[in-house]
């Protein structure tokens, strides 16, 4: 059962990759920007879903993305450092900040965790909003891209950049697929289902959640560093709770805890935004209605619903083998 669910999830991932690569190959100059945007949001969504594996839903993930944005922009523009060094610094900083926030945040769950993460992200936002070093609310331009010319990749070419983002997204997806199937990842999934039993079996729930939050922070910051170099610009808007909301929508629409759902949701979100905003004035309204409908009709998201559908068919095929469970006394 579990193996087949994994197989379906990975198959959806492969289909998504093929579609993305075909779209990228055929896309116009402008559409390359959208594809890069979707791929970066997809990486960000993967980082949020890794955290959701252990049952934690963050509403302040833009804060960790923002750490990556500000460290990358700070090291390159303000300190004149190399973009490649800045990229590593951003990832490490994301992990460090997530670790420190996590020391407090992962002691809570549910609504409290949402509030703690939101508060932490808003702190970074209000600092960025007023910080004169980074141009405050106006933002700051001139953020360079990674220098991959030694391996003959010119990221200033939009086509190359978009393709590189897709490849990076695939690499992170594969890495996380390995992680969720590992003993560590299975422990995270067990914690999501029943943290008290994990504790009774000798697992330190707090440490596993902290590790997941730290890893998630590193990947979110990586996405942030990609985001600022994509638009060559940094502004506090990148850290606003709107961004946390967008990535949450992407993961929920795609399917929480499915990994591949996040990228799928991210692609749909970017696509719908583009279609709606070019047609309607109040496009966020229509976007909201569409996502409310998806959430109501498919509470487990697109991928989650597909998995349930295949699971049900399988149970029916197995016939009356399944005994009804009685209530506990």
């Amino acid at each position: 059962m579990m193996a087949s669910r994994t197989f379906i999830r990975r198959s959806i991932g492969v289909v998504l990759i093929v579609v993305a690569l075909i779209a990228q190959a055929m896309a116009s100059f402008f559409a390359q920007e959208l594809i890069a945007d979707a791929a970066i949001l997809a990486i960000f969504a993967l980082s949020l879903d890794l955290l959701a594996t252990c049952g934690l839903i963050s509403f302040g993930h833009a804060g960790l993305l923002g750490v990556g944005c500000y460290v990358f922009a700070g090291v390159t523009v303000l300190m004149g450092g190399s973009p490649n060094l800045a990229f590593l610094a951003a990832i490490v900083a994301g992990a460090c900040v997530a670790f420190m926030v996590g020391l407090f945040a992962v002691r809570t769950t549910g609504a409290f965790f949402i509030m703690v993460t939101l508060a932490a992200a808003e702190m970074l936002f209000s600092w960025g909003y007023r910080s004169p070093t980074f141009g405050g609310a106006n933002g700051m331009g001139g953020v360079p891209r990674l220098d991959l010319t030694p391996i003959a990749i010119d990221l200033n070419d939009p086509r190359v950049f978009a393709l590189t983002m897709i490849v990076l997204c695939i690499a992170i997806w594969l890495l996380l697929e390995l992680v969720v199937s590992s003993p560590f990842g299975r422990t995270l999934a067990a914690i999501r289902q029943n943290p008290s039993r994990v504790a009774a079996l000798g697992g330190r729930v707090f440490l596993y959640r902290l590790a997941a939050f730290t890893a998630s922070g590193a990947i979110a910051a990586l996405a942030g560093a990609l985001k600022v170099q994509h638009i060559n610009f940094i502004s506090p808007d990148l850290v606003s709770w709107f961004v946390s909301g967008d990535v949450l929508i992407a993961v929920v629409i795609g399917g929480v805890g499915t990994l591949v759902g996040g990228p799928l949701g991210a692609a749909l979100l970017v696509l719908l935004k583009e279609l709606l905003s070019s047609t309607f004035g109040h496009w966020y309204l229509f976007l909201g209605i569409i996502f409310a409908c998806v959430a109501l009709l498919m509470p487990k998201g697109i991928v989650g619903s597909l998995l349930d559908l295949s699971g049900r068919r399988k149970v029916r095929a197995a016939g009356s083998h399944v005994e009804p469970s009685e209530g506990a006394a």
Partner: protein
Amino acid sequence: MIALETRLLHRSFGSLAATQDVSLAFEAGLRYAIIGPNGAGKTTYFNLLAGNLRPDSGTILFAGRDVTRLDVTSRAKIGIARSFQRNNLFSDFTVRDNLMLACALRAGTTRVFWRPMRQTTSANAEADEIAARVGLADVLGTTVRQLSYGSQRQLEVALALACQPQVLLLDEPTSGMSPEETARMHELISAIPRSLTVIVIEHDMDIVLDIADRIIVLDYGRVLEQGTPAEIRASTVVRQRYLGEPAAGFSGGAAP
């Protein structure tokens, strides 16, 4: 040798003293049954032993070491494992994944993130072995939520066994079970190796009298009586307080 000992253990919930000055010593390798009417404080005492609850006062010693301040995770690590009165499993996982996870947590391999768990051969083999022991070998691939209630109860005990504990605490392993399922659980408990100290809360007096080397009777949070099954059977206090009139016999344990 004393495996586990409590000294003047006390725990209250508001004005209700659920455990009052309970001093008991559990000898290594023996099987103990804790009986008593509903509300006698059996599960509270278990929660104190396993570390799910902190006592208000008193001491808990494990192999002579003071473990009063250790939480449930630390106690699981040093060798006190428990099962729960209500099924407390990983319901999205298969039986195999439940067992493998328990084995991996015990073995300390759950920080491995670079290799799929299914390729961990030691945990795989151990899951097979435990499943065979408790009679779950046929349903290893079944998701827990599709498992019969009786099999879920068996898995509940199996997870505690997977911790390879020195002291095993079983909280009403047969609760809610059909007679056939109860018989299977009876076998399972009888087959637990003698190297383990087993403490079981149980209402089914047939099982209690068959498996227990010592019986402890709790009432209003206090130890009413303790002794061998023969001694308990003969005890007038127990007959009066727990079993009702002497004529009532031993078969009518209180319903859960």
